[in-house]
């Protein structure tokens, strides 16, 4: 039997390794790497010291500690998703503007070539 804490710890370690490796290869921007490193670190701490998490749950008045885990995890993922939607929107805008510029520049080039 492997306990839930061991699974959490293993997941955290895997996440840490993958993120560190990705940022070492410059495959992930630092600002996103930081988010996931912090998440993995927090999970690792709670996996090693479950009593810490339980104490925290009781401190904020949650009777069943896993409930707190579920709620915080969901909220965190929601915030991240909204954040990404926002960033994708900005990227789309920028790509579109670039595409328009390319179209106009190509037209200028065609016109210049036609003049010669």
């Amino acid at each position, binding site marked *: 039997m492997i306990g839930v804490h061991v699974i959490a710890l293993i997941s955290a370690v895997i996440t840490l390794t993958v993120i560190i490796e990705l940022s070492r290869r410059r495959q992930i921007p630092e600002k996103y790497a930081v988010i996931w490193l912090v998440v993995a670190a927090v999970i690792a701490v709670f996996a090693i010291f479950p009593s810490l998490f339980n104490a925290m749950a009781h401190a904020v008045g949650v009777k069943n500690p896993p409930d707190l885990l579920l709620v915080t995890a969901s909220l965190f993922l929601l915030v991240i998703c909204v954040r990404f939607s926002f960033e994708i929107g900005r990227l789309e*805008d*920028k790509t*579109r*503007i670039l*595409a*328009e*510029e*390319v*179209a*106009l*520049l*190509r*037209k*200028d080039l065609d*016109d210049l070539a036609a003049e010669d």
Partner: protein
Amino acid sequence: MTPRPAVNGRSVLVVVPALNEATSVAGVIAAILYSVPDADVLVVDDGSKDDTAIVARAAGAQVVRNPFNLGVGGAMRVGFRLALAKGYDTLVQVDADGQHDPADVATLVGALDDSDDPQVVIGARFAGAGNFEVPKARRLAMRILARRLSRITGTELTDVTSGFRAHNRAAIVLFADCYPADYLADTVESLVILADAGGRVQQVPVTMRAREAGAPSQSTLRAAEYLARVTLFLGLSAFRRRSSERTSEGASS
């Protein structure tokens, strides 16, 4: 392409956004040049997979090719920026599928007056001339949109999604900076932007012809989707910040 007087002493750039319209675009260009011989025609090839650009060039149009599909709004943004850079007095948008009658281009341009405020003249399909059939759901959505836009612009409008429009110089300047690129927003939100900038919208009845090519997007499911989008758009537009801040980066050559 040099601006020269074409209608009532004004230079005219006719912008034709085209996506895979190789079969119809030549006829449209010929018809435009026949009815307004001194206009320049600019086909914005919005990522076509067929010979639209080649056919358009052969038919006597200037061609700009978008590197990938940007939608009608994105194609029009390119048209506005080019019209601004080259110094055209008016820009007329005409669809490439042949449903707009180019004989009406002069009518639309003629409806622009000499004021320096931004002006748009819409060639409207439901304004009496000709017959035009659309499914009920779509028609309802269009009517709701039209009523709301009439209130915002202070003009009685019946066909706000029509892509048959004439813009004066001030409107070209305005839209070169901030023409909306999203679906629906290009035709509808542009009118809101114009109204906010103190501009004027007019509507002129035009005849619509059967499309020369291309499938009309009018199934019931599509119409329902359209209604949902219109509702969402109207809901959002009530809260939306009125500004060009989101898309005003970068200037044209």
